[in-house]
């Protein structure tokens, strides 16, 4: 194929895909009864409503201490869920990795646990756990914990597989024991990536914690829900604003830590 015909065929491919996407959009909105034109038309109105109602006022600022307290509680819970999840994920990933796995059964078990806990959304976990643990902070913690274990196990397995094969072989050949190999070859090699994933998990958990809190009636999610249901939209705005600030601060902090360790 020469250059000209290749360019032409690429052009047709692009056109084909654009048409396909337009077609799929039209088809799906027809099926679900979603009207794009109507949606776009209400945008200005929605914007005006947000501007007039979601204003942080002097009166809502008085609630700031309570909000901050709840926010801190939520952040701490997210961190606790992440750190305990990390400990469990670390051992599961040792079992699941090709480099450090000892028995096939353990590997299958680890990957099954990881994919089961990862592929069920955290909100679904919260709803499931609500049934057995009721509306309290344990439920919220457990939901985040389960999600963290799933995600981190998967991420750790990849880091271990990728990073340490050759050093593991060398240490095995010197007669080192399993845990000497893990802590002196695998861990030093994977540490930066693992820390990076842990920080990412903390960020994700803080975002998820709000949603989970609405369901389990704890933390900042509960505060949000409370003001929302009592139509105190100014306070809702303040809560939202403080969550956004918290997430940004945490993100900046973890970016800084990443830069230092790598």
């Amino acid at each position: 194929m020469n250059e000209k015909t290749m360019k032409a065929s690429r052009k047709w491919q692009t056109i084909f895909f654009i048409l396909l996407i337009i077609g799929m959009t039209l088809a799906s909105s027809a099926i679900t009864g979603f009207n794009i034109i109507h949606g776009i038309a209400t945008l200005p109105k929605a914007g005006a409503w947000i501007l007039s109602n979601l204003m942080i006022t002097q009166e809502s600022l008085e609630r700031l201490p309570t909000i901050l307290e709840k926010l801190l509680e939520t952040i701490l819970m997210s961190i606790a869920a992440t750190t305990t999840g990390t400990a469990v994920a670390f051992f599961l990933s040792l079992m699941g990795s090709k480099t450090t796995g000892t028995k096939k059964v353990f590997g299958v078990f680890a990957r099954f646990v990881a994919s089961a806990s990862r592929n069920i959304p955290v909100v679904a976990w919260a709803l499931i756990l609500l049934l057995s643990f009721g509306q309290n902070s344990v439920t919220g913690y457990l939901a985040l914990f389960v999600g963290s274990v799933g995600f981190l196990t998967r991420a750790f397995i990849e880091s271990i597989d990728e990073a340490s094969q050759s050093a593991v072989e060398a240490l095995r050949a010197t007669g080192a024991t399993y845990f000497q190999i893990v802590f002196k070859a695998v861990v030093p090699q994977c540490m930066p990536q693992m820390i990076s994933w842990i920080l990412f998990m903390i960020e994700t958990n803080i975002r998820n914690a709000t949603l989970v809190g609405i369901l389990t009636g704890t933390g900042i999610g509960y505060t949000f829900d409370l003001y929302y249901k009592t139509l105190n939209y100014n306070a809702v705005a303040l809560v939202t604003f403080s969550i956004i600030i918290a997430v940004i601060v945490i993100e900046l902090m973890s970016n800084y830590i990443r830069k230092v360790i790598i």
Partner: protein
Amino acid sequence: MSLLQIKDLGKSYNSDAKVLQGLNFEVESGEFLSIIGPSGAGKSTLLRCINRMVEIDEGKVVFDGQEVGKLNKKELRKVRTNIGMIFQHYNLVPRLSVIENVLHGRFGYKTTIQGVLGRFTEAEKEHAFFLLKKLGIEEHAYKRCDQLSGGQQQRVGIARSLIQEPKIVLCDEPIASLDPNASKVIMDHLKSITQELGITCIVNLHQVEIAKSYSDRIIGLNKGGIVFDGPSYRLHRNHTDQIYGTQTQATPEIRELIMV
């Protein structure tokens, strides 16, 4: 009795075609032995059968009077402390310092806890520095390994194997990733290991000339079988042709493999 005896050794991965078949040879203490052969001949597999990094399927490997294939986990670890290993890609922990990597060679002598906590005696540390000095990389002791050149990293690998105080060192293509100058430095160090310390060396190589000039003895491997075994001065053109399947003695299918 010889330090190492290989008897009717056979090996296959995934029960496919045999990678090694009916190997028989003995290695004496203080010998410098090179194993040459085309890639895929089974050189790496043979070395890894000696310290059982891969399981032995048939026959036996007797090292220092012990049958390696019959050892339990603990005994195997003990035997491995007497077998150093050097790799083509050095296999260091790149993020750790040179001295830490050298001390890794002592783990076989320690309990798990001592190893994990990094408890090393003064004597061990002194020994590590002594080896680094001997290998000419003392000034890099506290650098991270990934900041060293290939030749320097391989010297760290040699120090790691020597601190084990081994009876034998297995080298799997130790100079395949190095330039000629660094290669010479490494080969000279390996040679002095046998000459000065009396440690046996088995070196997989693919450069016939280097094998001939450094080793006492050469084993030529082709398709998992020994086609030459003798003192290096006896290795002639017709042998290498047979080992690498390049000329008259080569069967047509081997020639095809080379062409591909």
